């Protein structure tokens, strides 16, 4: 069965529970997938999309956030954001949630005073520590109420 296409009001959540991430600053993020033993570095527009998606922004709102924070955005920005969000979903890093129907997604934050030049988002994927990350996994038994 084909997955449902992304819509302007699509909203997202973290792909799975064994995915950890750290946003170094609003335009730089590290993601580590302990299930696959893969890690990712997202810079610039890619990091902003990631951060915005986890803040509950819809696809449309993410595109607005990009426009507010980057100069010289491409004409088909919404399509570029959707394609990158789909790539994150395909990697298992994001999943669609059902928050879109009631229009409850978060609003894009105000832009920065000095905008950064736009560069198309890309996913930097690293597999060099796959053995380390997968061979000795941490199995955390966590209190669900914690």
């Amino acid at each position: 069965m084909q997955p449902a296409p992304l819509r302007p009001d699509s909203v997202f959540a973290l792909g799975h529970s064994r995915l950890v991430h750290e946003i170094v600053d609003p335009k730089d993020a590290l993601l580590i997938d302990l299930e696959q033993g893969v890690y990712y570095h997202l810079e610039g527009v890619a990091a902003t999309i990631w951060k915005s998606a986890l803040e509950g922004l819809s696809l449309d709102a993410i595109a607005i956030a990009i426009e507010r924070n980057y100069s010289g955005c491409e004409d088909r920005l919404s399509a570029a954001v959707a394609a990158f969000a789909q790539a994150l979903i395909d990697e298992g890093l994001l999943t669609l949630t059902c928050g879109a129907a009631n229009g409850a997604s978060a609003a894009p934050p105000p832009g920065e005073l000095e905008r950064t030049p736009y560069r198309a988002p890309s996913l930097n994927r690293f597999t060099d520590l796959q053995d380390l990350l997968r061979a000795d996994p941490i199995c955390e038994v966590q209190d669900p109420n914690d």
Partner: protein
Amino acid sequence: VRLDAHFAADLEAYFARLSAAFDESARTGRGAHERCYRIAGQSIAVRCAGRRLATFLLPALQHLAQDGVDEASLEVDVFATGMKENDLALPAALRAAAATATASDPVHESAASPVYSYMGTRHLITWFTAAAHSEVSLLDLDRRRAVVLLQSDAGLPSLPASAPLRSLLTLWFEHQGMALVHSAAVGTDLGGLLIAAKSGGGKSSIALACLGTALRWAGDDSLLVEMRDGHARAHSLYCSGSVFAADVDLYPPLHGLSLQPRLDRPKMQFFLGQHAAWLVDTAPVRAIVVPTFTERSFSRVAPSSRSQALLVLGPSSINLAGGRPARRLGRIGALVRAVPCFTLELGRQTADVPAVLHDLLAGLDAAPITA
């Protein structure tokens, strides 16, 4: 139902059973050998059941040994048995919870030695089982006591452990807000540099190059880092180090040390506990340095981005010795945001590295540099 409440009786009984087994092991092993250590600002008392176990466990902590402690922050009892002593196994309910937590995870099914961690409100537990070796650490936060069971088919190795009690110490100190990082560190009492690299990335070589210089050794593989009021401090854990046999002659200070082959890596192992003047126990972190190998004639440092440091420190630290991956990564993120980061472009030889790093530290003292 909270897991803690669900397992409370099991865990209490298990702690009592392990403690009784420790007492019996100490009795048959001609006594408990107790030493106190000052680790990350806390007094940790370690009692080993039998001299052989103490000989195996304690050399890597020798540089942190202290005398005359009135009250330890944590008391740890350690004993060893054969693998077949099943009556000392973890409570079935806890094992079942672990199985449930991992049943849908194919990675865990094929894992050689998964590290499990349980972090309740009163008890912290970490355990792993490999083919011929297992380790269980159970920590009671209310009593500030822990008991560690080592089980092995072949008995204790003849070589001292390079990183003893690492899972237990990680759980304890991360519970206190610190983070275990995969890093070397050198420095003085006034300031230190974290050397962040993946395995084979130059951490040990740089720490070795600084041996016996003004830049003292805090560790070559794993350290504790504490963040307080936006400032980072590194704490030494182990005085063990390793070097490739072919490289021993590159580092003259090693000539007077006893070098023994490591069992787990093609390297020689040594301990620096007798050389306090070469070591630093704790130091404020002034910068993170990420080495890269170059064909340059001389080594040099250049400002780098925080993301570069996180990209090295995060993935290589996150899977060390149990604990909560997300929490550790968050603390490492706070660390890289708190200090400047540099790339160390290593020249063809490492002899100039101590001077380069010393100059870097001196420059940071005079005027902090930011990338």
